[in-house]
């Protein structure tokens, strides 16, 4: 019998969602509510961060109506949307992959009838769906308090909806890649913490990228992170309009495709390491 490296399985001819994937999503939704304390902690953190950011920015504005052509009210909406969005799309996939490798359950996970990465994506999606209902509560509160308004135009609403989906895609892929690093690193805690800390800045969640020096902006424009916060929210507040919306979506789509290709290659390499070298 000839033995070669494992080849990629051919794609299924009919695209039907595997019941195991749905089960992963459902289990993950239920689990979100099993950790209510952590859940509330996250929400509190989001609120506190929003409050502090607002204070800092108001002192920067110092009574002026606009800085660099950005009205104060618009900035507040920007920051509010950024925080709520961050709460919604924070990825669980990175913890999931890391834990399964640390505990060694990955060995049994990869011999399930449904692929390991599909299991992970199912859990990730379930986390998102589990957190989403909280926004039903948080969004009205934010609107009453006056820090959130709806997108100014229908164009902005539709553009933002599309952009948010792509932002989630980029976020999941970036964190999936960080998670996959655990196949090679003893611990990814350092890496995770580093990225977690700088991500908010690189993505424009703390400081909208308009306010940054040109050189830094040019660099950040070449990275995928702006697609996670800055691009979608610029559309939301009506700062990016018309054809520029399509341009922003195209940039995001590019990153989703590019990162997907990288993720598939890295996962193949990781699986090869697991099944050939024994992890």
């Amino acid at each position, binding site marked *: 019998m000839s033995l070669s490296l494992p080849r990629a399985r051919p794609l299924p001819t009919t695209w039907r969602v595997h019941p*195991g994937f749905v089960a992963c999503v459902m289990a993950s939704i239920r689990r979100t509510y099993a950790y209510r304390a952590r859940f509330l902690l996250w929400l509190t953190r989001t609120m506190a961060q929003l409050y502090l950011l607002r204070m800092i920015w108001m002192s920067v504005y110092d009574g002026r109506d606009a800085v660099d052509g950005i009205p104060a009210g618009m900035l507040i909406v920007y920051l509010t949307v950024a925080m709520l969005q961050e709460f919604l799309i924070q990825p669980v996939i990175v913890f999931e992959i890391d834990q399964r490798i640390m505990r060694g359950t990955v060995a*049994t996970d990869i011999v399930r009838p449904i692929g390991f990465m599909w299991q992970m994506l199912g859990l990730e999606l379930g986390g998102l769906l589990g957190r989403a209902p909280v926004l039903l509560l948080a969004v009205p509160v934010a609107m009453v308090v006056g820090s959130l308004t709806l997108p100014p135009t229908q164009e902005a609403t539709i553009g933002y909806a599309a952009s948010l989906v792509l932002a989630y895609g980029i976020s999941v892929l970036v964190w999936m890649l960080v998670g996959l690093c655990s196949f090679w690193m003893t611990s990814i805690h350092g890496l995770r913490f580093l990225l977690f800390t700088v991500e908010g800045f690189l993505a424009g969640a703390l400081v909208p990228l308009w306010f940054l020096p040109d050189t830094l902006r040019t660099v950040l424009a070449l990275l995928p992170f702006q697609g996670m916060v800055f691009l979608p929210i610029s559309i939301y507040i009506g700062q990016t309009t018309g054809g520029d919306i399509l341009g922003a979506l195209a940039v995001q789509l590019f990153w989703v495709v590019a990162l997907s290709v990288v993720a598939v290659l890295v996962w193949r390499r990781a699986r090869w390491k697991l*099944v050939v070298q024994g992890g």
Partner: protein
Amino acid sequence: MPLIRAEHLVKEYRRPKQAAGRFAALRTLFTRESVVTRAVDGVSFAIEEGEIVGYLGPNGAGKSTTIKMLAGILVPTDGACEVGGIVPWQHRSANAMQIGVVFGQRSQLWWDLPLGESLQLIGKMYRMDAERFRCQRDMLVELLDMTSFLQTPVRQLSLGQRMRGDLAAAVLYEPPVLFLDEPTVGLDVIAKERMRAFVEELNRERRTTVLLTTHDLDDVERLCKRIIIIDDGRVLFDGQAADLKRRYAPHRLLDVVVGGDATGDLRDVAAALPFGVTPVARDEMKATFQIDPEVIPVARVIADISARVPVVDLGVREPPLEGIIREIYEAREVAR
């Protein structure tokens, strides 16, 4: 045709060579040299449907590596293996449908989900319909006595409870083949017994074929008619447990208990034994003799001893597997 087949199965692990001295960690990272170790070195065996086979060997002998290759977790370096006509690593998910795996050291359950939900998730993954799932789950819950902790998150279960959950997860979808890698490790006597009874029942009712690795030879004595012993990645013995005893330890053990006033006589008996009989252990009231039945029939020894001391109780035993296996391992250590 055998259900599980391994032919000249080889698994080599290649690891970067560990540098020594200054900046060792850094140099290891960039070194191109690697060290190759052969965990499994040309293992062949065939297992028929309905067998329970004990796969034994000291730590690091290659037991887990073999099981991982049969489960499709590892790709063999050389040789071939098949389970139910499927090459595990080539058709991982097809193979997954027909095998159940339990690694005693590592749980396959979802750490933060209640056990019941883990089972449900597994049922869905294996495309069980609701009716079949409920039927199987209820049966397993009853058989393994899991009602009290079915709703408890797995991280809060005791080891014995977790192992029961793991076993249920592995057989939920009725796989014809079950791989058990040290399923009783760390369990107390009662939990071990429950585990063995369950595997026995499964084998009897469903004709599940079981490949079992363990360091607890009571598991083997209880469950396995056939034993495969490996060390250093090679098969040392493959055959019936009874044959192993006949070959490596053909002797019988005779336990003799004497009456209260005859303790001194027991010493005299031990001092003058017929050829082919050696004392193994002795205290005031009780002695154990090892008899080689090729040299002297056991019945004659009993008659001889009974004539000399007032025997209260006696029993003839086969030598325990434990001692035989230990001798085989030790013999290998010396030869190396």
